[in-house]
């Protein structure tokens, strides 16, 4: 993928920024747009965002490295965030993680061989009521059991097929 963001999107963002009183408020949106298009945010993506927002790359990088859902390193087509905070942990998050690791053959921070999944831990997805929970894309999946996980993985990998 040579292009980080299509030119028309860049222009659209630039236009939005021009009319904005505080362009920095848009930084997460721009980064997410880059991520949506490119999968993750490379250094050039940070520089592009800075250019769009009229600020320095450092200012963008400060935010990009702060949020764990903005990926500054390559990820698979689907990123699995498994909650490991207290509620989920007490309801079996460790087993969920163990199952995922075994199933996908990867550890935290790693991407499966087929480039489909990246496994990341997350602290609290706000789904304590459905613990244990994980998030793929923007969807939260609660009350995980091995069977459910298998179903979700199957669905996601089908969707994420290149």
């Amino acid at each position: 993928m040579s292009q980080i963001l299509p030119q028309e999107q860049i222009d659209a963002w630039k236009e939005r920024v021009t009319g904005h009183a505080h362009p920095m408020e848009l930084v997460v949106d721009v980064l997410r747009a880059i991520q949506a298009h490119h999968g993750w945010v490379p250094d050039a993506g940070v520089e592009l965002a800075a250019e769009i927002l009229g600020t320095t790359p450092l200012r963008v990088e400060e935010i990009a490295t702060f949020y764990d859902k903005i990926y500054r390193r390559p990820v698979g087509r689907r990123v699995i965030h498994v909650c490991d905070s207290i509620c989920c942990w007490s309801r079996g998050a460790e087993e969920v993680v163990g199952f995922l690791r075994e199933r996908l053959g990867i550890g935290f921070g790693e991407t499966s061989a087929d480039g489909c999944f990246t496994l990341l831990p997350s602290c609290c997805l706000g789904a304590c009521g459905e613990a244990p929970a994980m998030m793929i894309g923007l969807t939260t999946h609660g009350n995980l059991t091995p069977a459910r996980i298998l179903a979700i993985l199957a669905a996601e990998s089908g969707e994420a097929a290149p």
Partner: protein
Amino acid sequence: MPKLTIDNQSVEVPDGTNVLEAAKRLGIVIPHFCYHEALGAVGACRLCAMKFEDGPVKGIQMACMVTAQEGMVVSTLDAATVEFRAHVIEWLMMNHPHDCPVCDEGGECQLQDMTVAGGHTLRRYRGLKRTYPNQQLGPFIEHEMNRCIQCYRCARTYQDYCGGEDFGVLGTNQRVYFGRFRDGRLESPFSGNLVDVCPTGVFTDKAFRFKSRYWDLEEAPSVCPHCGLGCATIPGGRYRELQRVRAGSNRQTNGFFICDRGRFGYGHAAHAARPRVPLVDGQEVDWTQALAAARARLDKIIAAHGPRSVALLGSSRAGLEANAQLRSLARLLGTDRVVFAAHAPRDWTARTLAAGLGAQASSLDDVRRSDCLLLIGADPLAEAPLLALAVRQAVRGGARAAIIDPRPVALPCATAHLPLAPWRLGQALAALGDNDWSRFEGQEAVFLEGVHEALAGARHPIVIGGADLLGPAGMRQLLELARRLSREDRPCGAMGVLSGPNSYGAALLAGDGPDFEELSNAMITGEVRALICLESDPLTQAADPAHAGLALARLDLLVALDSLPTKTLGHAQIILPTTVTAEGAGCFVNNEGRMQTFMRVLAPGLPLRETGGGGHPPRLFMADTPGAAPRPAWEILAGLQGRAASLAELRDALAREDVRFAGLTALAAESEGQRVADAGLALPATRVEDYVPRDGELALLVCEALFGSEETAFYSAPLDPVRPEPRLILHERDAGRLGVTPGEQVRLHSAVEEVVLPVEIRADSAPGVAILPRVRGSLVEAFVPGVGPQPCRINREVDHA
């Protein structure tokens, strides 16, 4: 004024003081990292815990976060708080690499001090330690992230206080990282402050790397010689070499920070070509012979041509005492031809300012507290960097700042900029004073009206003018404007940006005496046969260096006193080496008329690194130090008068003789300085008609540059890597008309010289003006700032070829 009790001692502090400061007043220093007087409290390091036993707040609290209130009873020695602090320091030290032996901060490391003060002497943690990669941060700053304790002081200084945008905090959690997006030089001209501010060794001075330990340095309070602001500095030297400068603190001037020019400009003291022995006709002689020879030759010339055939030239680089001694030497010789600056227009501007500033004088601290600032013809980052920082603090505090300047002046804060051609600055000042916008139209009129409104409505307005662009007439107008804007309930301050550390003092001594132009004319006609030149370099400083060259060439005798290897020394028959600021004591009068004394930091001498030749230092017994001959200029000048007086005696005499310097005798080097007394000298109005280009013509404006044009800093090796390349700045309209593209080489034809240099095209400079920042030691060295716009012609080099 709340009164509180800390450790059974009661103290009364001003409203709004935090408890940590209140304790400091009692001499109780509690370990703290994140709190800094200039940065404020954030309560991040959790180290300044105190037990609040009684009063409005109870329990263990962070003292920096609690405002002192009436009736508080606080204990710093409470067992629980002591234990609390000990735990916090142990946590902070958990990942520390314990590499103090190879760390330059060792010895002056707050973390070391606080660790010991906190009672943590033995590491209990046996696990693995976190490590970081480092970044290359340019020629000034060395980065070692492993030592970081995440106090955020660096980011708060760099971004919040100094307004830098290329360095900040990255990451979260266990990988918080302080650095840049990519390796590269820190762009802020205040980056050196990271070294002072970092409580441990993450940021250390690269130019000072591994040179010395803090305890081996000779240090003394001093004043920065690199611009007219007079920032407090603490130079440090060892083995006869000035090795570093760190910021001193003077609440009235610089506060706690200095700029990189002041921090890394010390290299001139160890310049290889620096004059180190008295020379008579190129022969090395001792001081007695040199002084005798100078005196004999002067007497001979006086006998042949009368006393007025001797002229004396002082300098804004020399201290007040040296310039005063020059004046008394002139009296002794019987000549009235004594001038204190080689650049006549600057001289007259400084004299206008010194004569008229009076009660309008504003310090940098006033600027920081101001709520409305007008900068006209002043580019703080180039001419007086700390002023930019002061303006930023004002703006952070809610002030409005307007800039009227032909240059694309960019301050590290939000400002409004009106690019106005230099010859119209006077009109703008007049318009602001008269509230009459008839000579302006459209945006300009709106801008000026807005500025006037803001100034009129502000509580502490200050107008700041640059000497180089305003000139004497403009400076007079600026002072007049400040007077007009002043009301009974609320004065309007004024500040002039002068070039030399002692421009103001030299101007006070000059009074309404002759200027250098008069002097050089007299040299050319042969009326003046001999010149005594005190730390002054007319060949690069004079408004017209070529004319000065002609004048110097006609002299029978040139006696030059200097510490720098200037061009003028090449013409001198007698060279008397002087000490640099850090090697001699003296006094500078800064641009607001504040007398500030500095102490001798180290004795002059050839650095051991040179005499040792890199290997072992010499294995010899020597009676005297090599290269130790330079003497303070005031001592040499007193010697030429046949006197041997101490600095204290000279100050005494000066204070008695001249009521304006009455406070000089009681001035301590670490004090905030003292303003000169106002003697109310009136100067005749001088009016030089500016060159105004006709339509289609371009005017050349030579101006100062941050790292390129200051004289002493030019001789400083640590600044070599950041010296700019010469360039010509054109407005995009003019560039379009000439058909040049950014970076293209153009040929500049001017009365001074014809040079070829690249262009930078800006939209925020004034149209019709070609701006040339001076870079010493480059092909544009002959261009001198401060002479107003000059006619010029610009061709594309391609066309020419």
